[in-house]
């Protein structure tokens, strides 16, 4: 078994031991879907939500919360901790490169995100008769680009933050504005046009539009996919350029 597979398996096990994180990523979004799904009439198209089924709208929010929590809270905090505690440094003096650990760690989180989305979609489908995503190809692509762009942004935060504490702080500072602009708390169509426009340019806002559209059967606008791809490329390149392997 090569270093990557072994590291991914071990990190997967470590992830499952973090009960709080597992709850947040799997149970919380499902609870959200169930709580709203039980409201009478909510599983029908809602005028206030541009005719999207209420439960489907909430399921989309659940997906967004999972991705943004992983990308802007879990990624910066844990990776910066691994650096600060000398785990990356210790790995640097073995035949395995510390980069392998980062990739293994990201893969574990990406798989967790995908499984969580599968769970959200299944619960919505089987408990509340919400149709499966009508454009599955676009749905999956939007999801993958969402993961890539938010993880890249999380890595950029880790790259510029000198300590684990500052990485967490900076992550949180981006987390709430991203959620607000993407319309997690107030539906995006109730925000002012300027804020709506700003939200479209955030990775989370673009992801949420693309995921909702493809779920409802509309081809997502290419701008949204392009915005996510651009965030992935720019944040990812900057992160790779400025990432420090050793504590400050």
């Amino acid at each position: 078994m090569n270093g990557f597979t072994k590291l991914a398996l071990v990190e997967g096990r470590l992830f499952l031991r973090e009960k709080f994180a597992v709850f947040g990523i799997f149970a919380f979004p499902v609870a959200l879907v169930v709580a709203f799904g039980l409201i009478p009439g909510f599983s029908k198209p809602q005028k206030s939500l541009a005719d999207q089924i209420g439960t489907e709208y909430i399921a989309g929010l659940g997906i967004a919360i999972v991705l943004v929590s992983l990308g802007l809270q879990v990624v910066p905090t844990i990776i910066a901790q691994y650096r600060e505690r000398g785990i990356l440094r210790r790995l640097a003096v073995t035949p395995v490169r510390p980069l392998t650990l980062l990739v293994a760690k990201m893969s574990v989180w990406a798989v967790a995100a995908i499984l969580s989305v599968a769970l959200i979609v299944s619960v919505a489908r089987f408990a509340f008769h919400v149709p499966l995503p009508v454009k599955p190809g676009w749905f999956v692509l939007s999801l993958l680009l969402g993961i890539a762009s938010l993880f890249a942004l999380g890595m950029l935060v880790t790259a510029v933050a000198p300590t684990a504490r500052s990485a967490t702080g900076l992550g949180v500072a981006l987390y709430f504005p991203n959620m607000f602009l993407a319309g997690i708390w107030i539906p995006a169509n109730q925000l002012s046009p300027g804020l709506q426009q700003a939200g479209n340019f955030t990775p989370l806002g673009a992801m949420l539009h693309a995921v909702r559209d493809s779920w409802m059967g509309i081809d997502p606008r290419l701008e949204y996919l392009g915005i996510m791809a651009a965030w992935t490329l720019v944040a990812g390149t900057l992160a790779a350029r400025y990432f420090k392997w050793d504590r400050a």
Partner: protein
Amino acid sequence: MTAVIEVRGLTKKYGDQTVVDGISFNVDQGEIFGILGPNGAGKTTAVECLTGLRRRDGGEVRVLGLDPKRHSQRLYQRIGVQLQESQLQDRLRVAEALDLYASFYPHPADCRGLLDRWGLGSKGGTPFAKLSGGQKQRLFIALALVGNPEVVFLDELTTGLDPGARRATWDLIRQIRDSGVTVVLVSHFMDEVEELCDRAAILEQGRIAALDTPAGLVDLAGGEYQMRFRPTAPLDEGVLLLLPGVSSVTRHGAQVTVTGTRDFASAVTADLARRQVIVADLRIEGRSLDNAYVTLTGRSLETS
């Protein structure tokens, strides 16, 4: 003896500050080589240049014939490193950690045996965060050995260990050396270097102040030994002063203290035996690297 580590004029700068200033030494196969010095003397930086964690600014380094700057990947398969102040993932269990690191190497050691030898046999299922300081330290030593390395670098080996565990650790390090592994030991503990090292370099502000066997370092510093005893018959102290190596003789009540260098102690005991003076409570003290260190570097480790 063949040199497994060759260092010529190794230099490392941080900005305009020279931390390691052109040091040279060889480490022979199968020896325990100590690098001793106060905090900030450049010990850790020097070793980091040997293990490829830092890129040197000047000089030549070969470890097992490989340049750590260019062939670090090949080197990492053959060396083991224990770093100062390193941690593992909180929830990673002891046996998992060892098993994980073993999977990185082409010819790993038997993990079970390593755990037992380092007193972690019953801790296999314990998460890293729940280990005591000493257990963490022993785990890191085990991790440094799990790849069956030809050279091990140990930085501050016994920090955090209680006196009993330190002794046990020293015994195990000797066993490692006896199995043919070369050990490079970074330490600021005199007793550890004196007890364990075949040779040691004293580093002082990035330079080697002295390099010799521990006993040689003591001699180099002209370290004096003290010998104390109670003679059971009357004794003419003046006669002892004439013996080779003896520098002073004093008496406090019934106790006589003789100070001297090198082999003075055997000269004194031989002389007493010849004159049939039986002594009680014989003690020889002050044969310490501690004193030698102060002499050689002009300061003590504790205050620097």
